[in-house]
């Protein structure tokens, strides 16, 4: 399927991650300085030239395991720390939000507007740091360059690839349930009303033509919905009104319970892309992405602070314990099973090692390192 999904996956999932972290940081009454630092560090890493260039290379979309590993590393590019249980919940929230956006977008091209909505808000988060703003702008330009020329059909293929990636995920998100975006069974609501996509006509008309192309008859039929004409098209430029609201920040500080998630009953356990240890290309991608993430400030464990995606530390600990007992929803190897702090820092160290090797030899790191990394992840 599409070979161009990765940049959009990271921008949108990363964007959702930042929205949620922003909400949690403020709910925890984190200092302005610390909050700004966290945002700047994560944005700086995610939108770094090296990382984005890796993402922009044509490649397949791999498993949730790989995505989650890289996003965890991104989150920890700052001085903030997340417990495995919180990281799990964060990933669930990110993915369900993006799934909702991809599912509901009126036409495939709107995927770009959704991505631009994320980038606009990210730019706002780091607006006081010119260097970070520059990085976001640079990335935005590259995205415009890479995706503007794609046809609707190619963008639909990209969308279908993303939908396959999200298939069978029905984690219930409190905010979505509250706003009735999601049903109690975890499925998203799809209305048969509202504006039609740009380029589509409101359904309900049959026109018959003669051999010369003249309309000879027209008849209406009941559309079974209440559709209205399309609204004006959003801007695909670096700055502009995107018009659509998908991809904008839905989280508010006043309602931290919005980030609660729960598994819908009778949800089947699925594995997308069996975790095949011989998936060389996937390992290579993981190694390249980890290696391309340079962090300016290596966090020292003492100066870091923890963020909790739950109401209390007790809740977080309970979630961690119960989740390791039940099977993971997406067949993701449970990184949280690495209760051992040492193993976690070992992973960070290996990831750090890639950076040094990057400088000496810009070639792909050897398979050895990749397998070491995977072994670390598999170490249950």
């Amino acid at each position, binding site marked *: 399927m599409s070979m161009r999904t990765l940049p959009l996956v990271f921008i949108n999932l990363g964007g959702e991650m930042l929205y949620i972290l922003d909400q949690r940081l403020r709910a925890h009454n984190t200092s302005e300085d610390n909050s700004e630092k966290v945002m700047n560090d994560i944005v700086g890493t995610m939108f770094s030239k090296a990382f984005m260039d890796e993402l922009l290379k*044509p490649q397949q979309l791999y498993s949730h395991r790989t995505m989650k590993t890289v996003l965890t590393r991104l989150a920890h590019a700052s001085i903030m720390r997340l417990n495995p249980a919180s990281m799990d919940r964060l990933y669930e929230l990110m993915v369900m939000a993006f799934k909702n956006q991809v599912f509901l977008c009126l036409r495939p091209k709107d995927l770009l507007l959704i991505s631009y909505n994320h980038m606009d808000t990210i730019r706002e988060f780091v607006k006081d740091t010119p260097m970070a703003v520059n990085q976001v702008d640079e990335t935005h330009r590259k995205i415009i360059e890479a995706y503007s020329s794609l046809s609707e059909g190619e963008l*639909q293929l990209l969308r279908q690839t993303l939908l396959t990636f999200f298939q069978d995920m029905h984690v219930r998100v409190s905010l979505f349930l509250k706003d009735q975006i999601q049903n109690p069974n975890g499925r998203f609501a799809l209305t048969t009303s509202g504006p039609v996509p740009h380029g589509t006509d409101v359904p309900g008309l*049959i026109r018959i033509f003669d051999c010369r192309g003249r309309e000879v008859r027209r008849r209406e039929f009941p559309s079974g919905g209440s559709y209205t004409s399309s609204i004006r098209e959003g801007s695909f430029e670096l700055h502009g009104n995107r018009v659509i609201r998908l991809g904008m920040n839905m989280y508010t500080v006043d309602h931290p319970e919005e980030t609660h998630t729960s598994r819908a009953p009778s949800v089947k356990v699925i594995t997308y892309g069996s975790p095949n240890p011989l998936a060389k290309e996937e390992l290579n991608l993981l190694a390249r992405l980890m290696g391309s993430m340079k962090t300016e400030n290596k966090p020292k464990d003492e100066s870091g602070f923890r963020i909790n995606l739950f109401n209390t530390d007790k809740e977080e600990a309970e979630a961690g314990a119960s989740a390791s007992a039940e099977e993971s929803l997406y067949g993701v190897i449970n990184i949280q099973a690495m209760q051992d702090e040492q193993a976690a820092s070992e992973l960070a160290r290996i990831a750090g090692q890639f950076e040094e090797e990057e400088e000496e030899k810009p070639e792909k790191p050897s398979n050895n390192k990749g397998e070491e990394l995977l072994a670390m992840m598999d170490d249950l």
Partner: protein
Amino acid sequence: MYHKEKSIQIKNSASALYNNLSVLRIAPRRLTHFTVVHANMVNMVSASWDGLNYTHRQLQSKEPNVATSTSLIMQAAFCVLPSRDLLVVTSQKGIQMYESDGSIMVYWHALDTPETPTAQAVFARGIAAVYENYICVGVSSGAILVFDVPSKGSNITLSEVLEEHKESITDMASECSGSQECIANLVTADDGGNLCVWKSGEEFQLLNKIPGFDMSCSSVKLWKGTAVAGYGTGQIRLYEAVTGILHAEINAHARWIYSVDIAPFSGLLLSAAEDSLVRVWHMTITPETNSVEVAHLHNECVTDTQICGARFCDGDGYAFAVTGYDLSEIIRYIQS
């Protein structure tokens, strides 16, 4: 006009792919095969007509006897030829052909995949059985592979490669009215909405090219010389295939159409889209007088579901079946 019948449960959910449902009715054995694609596998369920027996089977897309990882499947479709029925499965890696019950793979054709991935995706999509013994399969480059299929055995050969489309093939269909008098017997569609009309033979002949307007045609059928095409804009257009004359245009759906199907004996037309609606229409086509008439008959809404497959289960359109993204069932409707 139609009411909902008992759904058939399938082992996994349907993926968001065009034309993601294929149906094969086997009258002598009083059963019907259904296939639905889920990521890298095909779910096949065979339902007995008395509703008592359901057999399930799953097929994966990979080269036989090779331990490579599986690849994502784009489409699975039954191909009905005079002497045999085959199940054709197209993926990112290649094309597989099975006996129609999915029991044995009789042919594998690998696609040329570049050493380093290019931005242009590589896959096969668009499947049709064409008079007299051909199976045509589309490729992401726009090429159409024509396979010559013997009446039995696995000696299937690649007979021709048709290079007319410049964009990825989305769907294709052969003339389904059963009439031998039609000049054109294959229509192929691509991501730009362009339709090519062909006459089959040892060398396929291009009869006509109908331009699209840069809007993908995701599903196409050919009946009584009329190409019926469903587009990403939600429009359905009826063209006289050989001349390209537009006979009818329907603002049918509010979202991308994923499937159109025709019941050849009655002229019923089925359309389904991401807007969660399935619509039934009736077409009256009189080739002699060049007249076409289309009437809307019925709507069904599959709540909160982006539909990805819809097919009539019989030539009269007495029953039809529907699949949706993330749905693990085949929903069925029969005439009241």
